[in-house]
């Protein structure tokens, strides 16, 4: 045992519990007597009345005052109880009322489109490679467009297997797949329905303005930071 370790506990606290006995082998092991304040009111009548008052106040407020707006209810932290005239209920009644999700919330996938309405995906297989849940199936085919080699003939995502990690979006070099729809995977009665197809994901997609295939000079060449652009167009 190192000396520095022993040095720690030797300083006796100046005030504190009454020490009844100290162990010979380990001076820090002691029997102490804890002095707790005696409870004057053993029947706890006053405390009971106080507690009933608190719950009754909450009950009355929540029963008679109108519900606050969803935004106020879903806000983090407890409501200000010093404000006498507010309903304190925090429940958000989900299907009817929805909380605004943060901007980076990862929802259902969508496939982005080119200017001519075709899918942006070039079937590079980055996303099925990186996908930890192996939920992406891509069958590539040759593209009609001579500037683009491949496109997906089949692009399917099994939303039941998807772990919503967002790695596919990060892996995509073409801004072809995004998870910014803000929608949940819907509950289904048939597993087959939970598989998103190329068409269903393209239906949610919009045109992306990202330059594809390394056209034009890179912002790295100029050294003045990434270009300011509206990625949500």
């Amino acid at each position, binding site marked *: 045992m190192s000396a520095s370790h022993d040095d720690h506990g030797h300083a006796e606290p100046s005030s504190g519990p009454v020490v009844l006995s100290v162990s010979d082998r380990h001076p820090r092991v002691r029997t102490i007597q804890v002095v707790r304040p005696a409870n004057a009111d053993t029947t706890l009548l006053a405390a009971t009345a106080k507690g009933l008052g*608190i719950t009754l106040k*909450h009950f009355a407020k929540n029963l008679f005052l109108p519900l606050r707006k969803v935004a106020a209810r879903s806000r983090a932290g407890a*409501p200000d109880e010093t404000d006498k005239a507010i309903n304190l209920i925090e429940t958000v009644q989900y299907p009817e009322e929805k909380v605004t999700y943060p901007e980076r919330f990862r929802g259902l996938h969508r496939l982005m489109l080119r200017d001519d309405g075709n899918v942006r995906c070039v079937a590079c297989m980055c996303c099925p490679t990186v996908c930890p849940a192996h939920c992406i199936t891509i069958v590539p085919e040759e593209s009609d467009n001579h500037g683009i080699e491949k496109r997906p003939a089949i692009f399917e995502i099994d939303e039941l297997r998807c772990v919503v990690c967002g790695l596919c979006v990060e892996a995509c070099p073409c801004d072809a797949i995004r998870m910014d729809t803000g929608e949940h995977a819907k509950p289904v009665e048939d597993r087959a329905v939970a598989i998103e197809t190329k068409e269903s994901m393209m239906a949610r997609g919009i045109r992306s303005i990202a330059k594809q295939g390394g056209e034009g000079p890179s912002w790295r060449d100029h050294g003045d930071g990434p270009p300011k652009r509206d990625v949500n167009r």
Partner: protein
Amino acid sequence: MHILYAILDFPATKWLFLVLVLVMPLASLLTWAERRQSAMMQDRLGPNRANIGPIKLIGILHFVADALKMIFKEDFIPANVHRGLFALAPVLALAPVLIAFAIIPFGPTIFPHLITQTIDPFTLALQPGAPEFADAIRMQMFSIDFGLIFYFAVLTLANYGGTIAGWASYNKWALLGGLRSSSQMMSYEVAMGLALMGAFVVTGSLEPGWIVAHGANSNLSASNPLNWLWLWQPLGFVLFFTAAIAETKRAPFDIPEGEPEIIGYFVEYSGIRWGMFFLAEFIEIVFISSVIATVFFGGWQVPFLDIDGFRVGGYMDPVTHVSTGGWFRSVPHGLIVAMQFGAFGLKVILLSSFQLLVRWTLPRFRADQLMNLGWKLLLPLSLANIMLTALIKLIYFMVTGN
């Protein structure tokens, strides 16, 4: 027509009316109201979604869903249970509570021939046999002199439900729950009975109907809130209420159930058999509220509503003991009856709601704290309450001579 009145005045008819109109709906609604109220006390919304098509009714229909669920759930009977006692226990828990309602006066006496008229209380007091007062329907099943004793006797039987359930389940946790239930009921019934004795000393009657109709002091109208026993027996009221909550075996006195340690005497029950224990618990809440409303809060009396109409500042006629004089506004008999029914229902609902408030506010007692409270606090206090009440009554008697 006489047959109809005779049928209406038959105790079984009144019992059916009471159970089907007041007790069962209120007890089933309480299963929903409890969850809703506890949620609102904890800043939540509670169950508000059960619906039949578009009919939602702020979630009241949850009790229908609950009942359907319990009826259609599998009624599982474990191996080695004593099948006869296992089946008997829920009935033993439920039946006594329903029987005990026999003594509750849940409405005034109805005179069917005078429904549209105003009753003349002097005629009623001097000539009760007059033809217009015939076929009276008394809204109390059994008006017996030992009414409150009867209630104690019958409700004690409900204890056997829990104990036998614990024994028959062939499960040590259930047995522990049954034993705890017995010991708790035994300890608290003493204090509960003694707490009511103070009311007996004040009114001189154990018949709930009499207490409601006369109040604490015969020199005041029974409809005067100051004549109700909460003012004359404040300590008795608090003691009885505490002991009565213990009697319903709900928090803070729910050690027979004790979910974190033992599940309680109904651990082996499922489906509608468990539902019967559950319902019995809620019917007990309604019953305790009815008893408290009857004994301490004037039962079906509406404040300042006498038998012939609203009266403020009147006095009791010394000969006929009829409330008279003061500011008066006559009300037809039928309307009075309706208002008094409503008043009883409202008092029961408010008292039940208060019991829910207590249940969801206080943490559970330990077994030793429970026994300490029962034997070392409630029992001596209720004895002191009787002594004090008797002493005051004696002094009052010596000073005034009546």
